[in-house]
């Protein structure tokens, strides 16, 4: 892919919390125009921190980018406050379905259009086209709709902002498998039909690799692998550690656990 096609470039960033805890130790990620990129990894690998670094939310947790840079559409954005970053078109969907509980579903969507308050009706119709369930629930307070509907509401809210880049943090968290499938299909459609580039953080590696053509694997604050999904699916380490597909299959013995740890150390 040509170099100028990348809309987001994270160049070797280092993030520290409270000025001492080094969380990201040089992370570089590129998101191509109109593409979906998945960011995979275990808990505590630094995936969410990477997203927060992009969207400027590190300040809430006393974190800071101490090295490296983040470029969005050729502009360095890593020193900007969060609302300036969202003005440039990057919208993060924070993990854990942060709806505004006491606003109705529709008002939640309208908050999404905070920065672009024209043509609301058309955009509402677009969101309702992708999420017909939200239309049924539009007058209900968002705190009282189900978890899946809240997740749809949050994604719809970001759509209302006409994002140039969507950062999705664990859209599958705490949802039923069928619902996850539905939401991922919508995410794929959004990317295909509306051409919204997506940087996706996900624990569900299998699903993420089917949705995203390209993926990064993070461990311990570093990118350890970076390849197309097809190749990652074939990679024996990924099959072992993330997909749970071992060649032997079945229960792992103690010896294999040791082997697992040894391999993992090598990986990092």
């Amino acid at each position, binding site marked *: 892919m040509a170099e100028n096609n990348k809309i987001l470039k994270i160049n070797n960033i280092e993030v520290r919390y409270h000025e001492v805890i080094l969380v990201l130790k040089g992370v570089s990620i590129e998101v191509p125009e109109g593409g979906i990129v998945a960011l995979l990894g275990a808990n505590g690998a630094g995936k969410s921190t990477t997203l927060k670094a992009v*969207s400027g*939310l590190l300040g809430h947790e006393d974190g800071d980018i101490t090295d490296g840079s983040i470029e969005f559409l050729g502009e360095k954005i890593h020193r900007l406050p969060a609302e300036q970053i969202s*003005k440039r078109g990057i919208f993060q969907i924070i993990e854990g379905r942060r709806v*505004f509980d*006491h606003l109705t579903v529709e*008002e939640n969507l*309208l908050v999404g259009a905070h920065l672009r308050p024209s043509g609301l009706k058309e955009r509402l119709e677009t969101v309702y086209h992708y999420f017909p369930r939200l239309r049924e629930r539009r007058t209900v307070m968002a705190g009282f709709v189900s978890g899946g509907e809240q997740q749809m509401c949050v994604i719809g809210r970001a759509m209302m902002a006409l994002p140039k880049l969507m950062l999705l943090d664990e859209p599958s968290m705490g949802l039923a498998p069928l619902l996850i499938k539905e939401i991922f299909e919508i995410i794929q459609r959004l990317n295909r039909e509306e051409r919204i580039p997506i940087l996706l953080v996900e624990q569900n590696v299998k699903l993420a690799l089917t949705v995203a053509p390209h993926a990064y694997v993070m461990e311990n604050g570093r990118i350890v692998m970076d390849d197309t999904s097809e190749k990652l699916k074939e990679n024996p380490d990924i099959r072992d550690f993330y997909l749970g597909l071992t060649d032997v299959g079945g229960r792992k013995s103690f010896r294999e656990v040791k082997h697992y740890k040894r391999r993992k150390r090598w990986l990092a």
Partner: protein
Amino acid sequence: MSYLPCGTYFESYADDHKWWRTSFIQGKMIFMLVVLAILPYVVDSQWLSVAYTINYYILAGLGVQLLIGYCGQITLGHAAFVAVGGYTCAMMLLLVPWPQFMVDGGLAYPVTIVCAGLLAGAWSVLFGLPSARVKGFYLIMTTMAAQWITVPLVITQYVAQIGGRGQAFAIPPDMIKIGPWVIDTDTKIYYFSVVLVGICLLAMGNMVRSKLGRAWIAIRDNDIAAETMGVNIVVYKLIAFWVAGFFAGVAGAFYLSALFFVSPEHYEWFFSLLWVGIILIGGVGSIQGLVFGAAFVVIVFKLLEIAVMSASSALMAINPELGWMTTKFIFFKEASFGLAIILFLIYEPNGLSYRYWQLKNYFNLWPFSYTGK
């Protein structure tokens, strides 16, 4: 769909956002306006003063409701901004050399009301600045600082000394005049208050259902998510403080028409607490709740006052020697207010407006409610 939905459904976005959406609501509101209009002909001046005190509390509480109920910024110093409004109005009426046509035409007082709002708003923003950094309990401390700095220090020690008048500023009665109407009787004060409250409630109602209000509620519900949606949190918090201060200033300026003088003891810290209590009783995050809360508190206070008065006069009639006991009743009012808040927090934590909402829902579905019983 396997069932037929019932109830009122709206087809367009415009219908959704109407003020009076059904003919029933229309009828209800018109009935309420008629009641408000004929009230002075039905009740005596004692209860009329209760009515405009309710309106004063509504005006002053609007800012508290906005800050606590809509924006999530807890404030315990709102009386300070009401004081700024009241003093601005009084000082301007007394000290500004008004041209004769403005005094005769009744323009001076309306102008001072607006100025009082603007200045109180600015003063409020000043004390809202810490909200950029601190939240919750720490913000309570900074807003309390507003109270202590403004009323006992700035107003009592400096502003009240201007012109060597001592602490109270009396307003010449004919200065309180709007257009051709001199506001001098309880009835006129009452009508004036109703109009002011109407305008302010309408403004507030429109604000909270617009982009501004959605941003405030978003900050209250989840400030980080609001920030990711591009809401500039600091700016919107400061706008909330400014608007709250403006309402407080208008309230202070209005109350001048009822009192004809200002004095620091009308703006004690107790009132800051009282207004927070009113919104707790009425319902946090609801304009209706503010109205219910104000009405509840003022009417209960009045009833207690009547009860204490009649009890003490009965006591005096039985045995004049026991007259000293009546002084012990005086503080019942404050104590009962504390008790009311405790009871409401235990038994009705969502406030009176929630009960009203339930009542409305009950009658919306009556007689075919599906409670499963």
